[in-house]
């Protein structure tokens, strides 16, 4: 879903998205502390694997995105983490495209940041098992929804209609939204129990 290939997006959309993504990467690298690198590498590797493995569905296939979990754990560092994973996916599996790397990065890292911004206050306030489960599920759900919206927005700005495209993109990932919600909730619950320092809790 999130890997738009070359030649689909307009030049304007590609250039603006690439500029914004480059700014995000630059800022993310600036905020990246040496001691955070193992955590960023781990999340980047998890994203690379999760978003490459396809879940077969009747007539189609889908994959996890982990946008919500990445946003909650990495903050601005999500930009370099996703960039490296996308470059490796392109080089080894042919996912996405070199020209559309910027838009693809922005379409994943941007929603990850937005999801974290929306869910982080809830997580900070309710660190009970129910609160963590609800925050994690919401983060997983919103992450996929917002990435789908960002992809649809990119396509619509390049000449395709937004609403049908968004619905088509999300229709194929409706089931994944639920699975992603459960995965994110489980991961958050485990992290808070084992390594709460991995999360940026207030």
């Amino acid at each position, binding site marked *: 879903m999130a890997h738009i290939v070359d030649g689909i997006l307009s030049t304007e959309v590609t250039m603006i998205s690439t500029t914004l993504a480059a700014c995000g990467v630059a800022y993310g690298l600036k905020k990246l502390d040496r001691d955070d690198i193992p955590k960023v590498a781990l999340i*980047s590797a998890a994203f690379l694997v999760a978003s490459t493995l396809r879940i077969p569905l009747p007539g189609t296939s889908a994959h996890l995105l982990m946008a919500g979990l990445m946003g909650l754990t990495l903050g601005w560092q999500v930009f370099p983490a996703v960039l490296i994973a996308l470059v490796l996916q392109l080089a080894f*599996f042919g996912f996405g495209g070199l020209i559309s790397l910027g838009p693809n990065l922005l379409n994943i890292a941007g929603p990850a940041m937005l999801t974290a911004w*929306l869910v982080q206050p809830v997580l900070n306030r309710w660190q009970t098992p129910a609160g963590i489960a609800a925050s994690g599920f919401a983060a997983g759900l919103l992450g996929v929804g917002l990435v789908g919206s960002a992809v649809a927005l990119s396509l619509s700005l390049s000449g*395709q*209609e937004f609403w049908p495209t968004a*619905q088509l993109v999300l229709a194929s990932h409706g089931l994944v939204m639920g699975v992603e919600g459960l995965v994110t909730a489980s991961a958050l619950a485990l992290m808070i129990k084992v390594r709460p320092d991995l999360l940026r809790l207030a």
Partner: protein
Amino acid sequence: MTALIRLFILLFLGVLFHTSPAEAHRLNIFASVNEAGLDGQVYYAGGGPAGELPVSVHDLDGQLIAEGQTTTEGTFHVPLAVLKPHLGKAISMTSNSGEGHSATFHMILPADATLPETTEAKEAPDKSGPGPKQFMQPLLMLLAIFGLLYWIKSIRRKQGL
């Protein structure tokens, strides 16, 4: 104020994925190119498949490349061999429901698509993705990149930057 902005965004998302019944008969086309050719889908705005509708593919000059009918699921397929002379160029797909609703989808065909050696029907592309063994190399490369980043950050920290 921040809570209000968050609430606004959540409401916006709610509205975003709400389908209006008034748009139920609007026709839409979506298509993508893979190694087997062009796969397209014609559907109504409500999301229902637009089955057994005429669909045609033209180049920028209006020359017909292919035409046919969508399946009952609203899908259509153009083999890559038919698209070969048009790779790297813009094409358009048009479908008409005959009820005053038509849709056109424009796209630029990728120039570097891998062509099949023969025009015979190819096996459907594998949708299962790469296996676990194929992750070894990219993960090692990822480790190397982050190791390099760690080394650079260590040097900068020593230099007090």
